[in-house]
């Protein structure tokens, strides 16, 4: 492969990597707060993307629909945590996994029911061509990357500089001590889910123009997001971002080398590989469990 072709693959890989980073970030946020992997994150994002599509179809402008969907996603995430997840908070791992899978299946099926399985196009808010005739990446890819970075910056600022963000970090790290300073840990969890759902919705809206809107659009993206989150370190938000970009580039470069048929297998190999070779990921700390 020529150097120019490689550069092209890397550049567009970074762009899609940004989207994986968003979804991975949502996964990491929930993991940090609950030590659970939300298997239904992709379907939640997909469902919210359909909501955005419906709003746009009803006449709302792109960005109005975008922000409305983000708000709806936030509320949806909170509701799911309070209603579906709370009853199994302390249940054994298998029960929780099963509930997640149940959620995944329900969301997928209901989306297919309400919105049908016909593949739909989803608009991109970015101009059709980049200025100066740049052809390295498409405008949407660049725009998606920019949106991802903005979201990440906002999240970082929220967690680092606001009292609420601090309280959420505290609740995730040490729920007992958090209660002792008056933090309502249950609500912090719900908030975390709400934020994660909102971030996921952004990821869905950004990826839909590329993979087209259909109920199964997120399965590949979810797998890559898992791989990204694990690669970066399941507890590290920064790691999720780096992991996402790396996974995006790998997907594109390997896809160009060995064809696009085995994309999911690549994700599988990545996931299993990271879990075996370095389970705490690039930026995570090794977990020690007490007996």
């Amino acid at each position, binding site marked *: 492969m020529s150097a120019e072709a490689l550069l092209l693959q890397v550049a567009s890989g970074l762009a899609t990597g940004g989207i994986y980073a968003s979804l991975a970030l949502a996964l990491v946020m929930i993991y940090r707060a609950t030590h659970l992997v939300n298997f239904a994150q992709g379907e939640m994002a997909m469902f919210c993307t359909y909501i955005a599509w419906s709003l746009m179809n009803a006449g709302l402008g792109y960005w109005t629909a975008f922000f409305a969907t983000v708000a709806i996603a936030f509320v949806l995430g909170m509701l799911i945590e309070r209603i579906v997840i709370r009853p199994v908070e302390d249940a054994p791992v298998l029960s929780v996994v099963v509930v997640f899978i149940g959620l995944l299946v329900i969301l997928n099926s209901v989306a297919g029911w309400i919105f049908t399985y016909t593949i739909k196009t989803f608009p991109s808010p970015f101009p059709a061509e980049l200025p100066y005739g740049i052809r390295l990446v498409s405008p949407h890819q660049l725009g998606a990357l920019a949106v991802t970075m903005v979201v990440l910056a906002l999240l970082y600022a929220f967690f680092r500089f606001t009292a609420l963000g*601090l309280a959420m970090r505290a609740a995730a790290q040490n729920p*007992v001590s958090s209660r002792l300073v008056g933090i309502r840990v249950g609500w912090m969890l719900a908030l975390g889910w709400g934020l994660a759902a909102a971030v996921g919705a952004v990821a869905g809206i950004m990826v839909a123009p590329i993979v087209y809107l259909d109920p199964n659009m997120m399965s590949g993206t979810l797998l890559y997001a898992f791989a990204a989150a694990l690669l970066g370190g399941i507890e590290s938000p920064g790691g999720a971002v780096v992991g996402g970009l790396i996974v995006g580039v790998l997907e594109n470069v390997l896809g160009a080398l060995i064809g696009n048929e085995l994309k999911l297998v690549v994700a599988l190999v990545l996931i299993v590989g990271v879990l075996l070779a370095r389970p705490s990921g690039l930026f995570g700390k090794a977990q020690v469990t007490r007996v």
Partner: protein
Amino acid sequence: MLLEVKGLQASYGATPVLHGVDLAMQEGSVTTLLGANGAGKTTFLRALCGMVKTSGEVRFAGARIERHATEDIVRLGVAHVPDGRGTFAGLTTEENLRLGGYTRRRARELEADLERMYGYFPRLKERRAQQAGTLSGGEQQMLAVSRALMLRPKLLLLDEPSFGLAPLVVQELFRILGAVNREERVSILLVEQNAAMALALADRAYLMETGRIVRSGAAAELQRDDAVRRAYLGY
């Protein structure tokens, strides 16, 4: 009466630990709860904060709180410094302190209180940006106490604050506790194994053995009592 406890029972699962504890505290007092390891002192403090299943009556400032959630009891003005300190190890010293003031409304007062804590414990100011988990034992204890004080509590519960600390550090800590009690009218319920220092600071004392109060009275009285001296003061 700031705190009134009547017939408090508590258990961990099926194992009962407290068998009907009575205790009362006046506003502004320093009361100490002494007893050997496993007597149930820690459980008692946790029961006050709604962290264990209990039956019986607990009144704080006249209101019954036995059924309240921990975070609600905290918002009534009860600050608990647990055994093990409960530091947020992954957050910085200053973040720990700010969390102590999480439930308070006025930002400017919060900043003033932050400075006051740094005044009591200058070492914390030096380490304000450091990860709390990397502080020494003594520093973490100071951090835990300061975090509790950031609440501007009416009642401060301390679980073995002298544990694992060098004697000089303990002295300094108890001096500050005394100052806080006198100048800011914070009532203190102090669970301690270091009976001598506790009795020197407190005005009232309770003795707990296997989940029951076996003696109570003025701290000075217990200090002079022969049986107590032999059992708990070692002379």
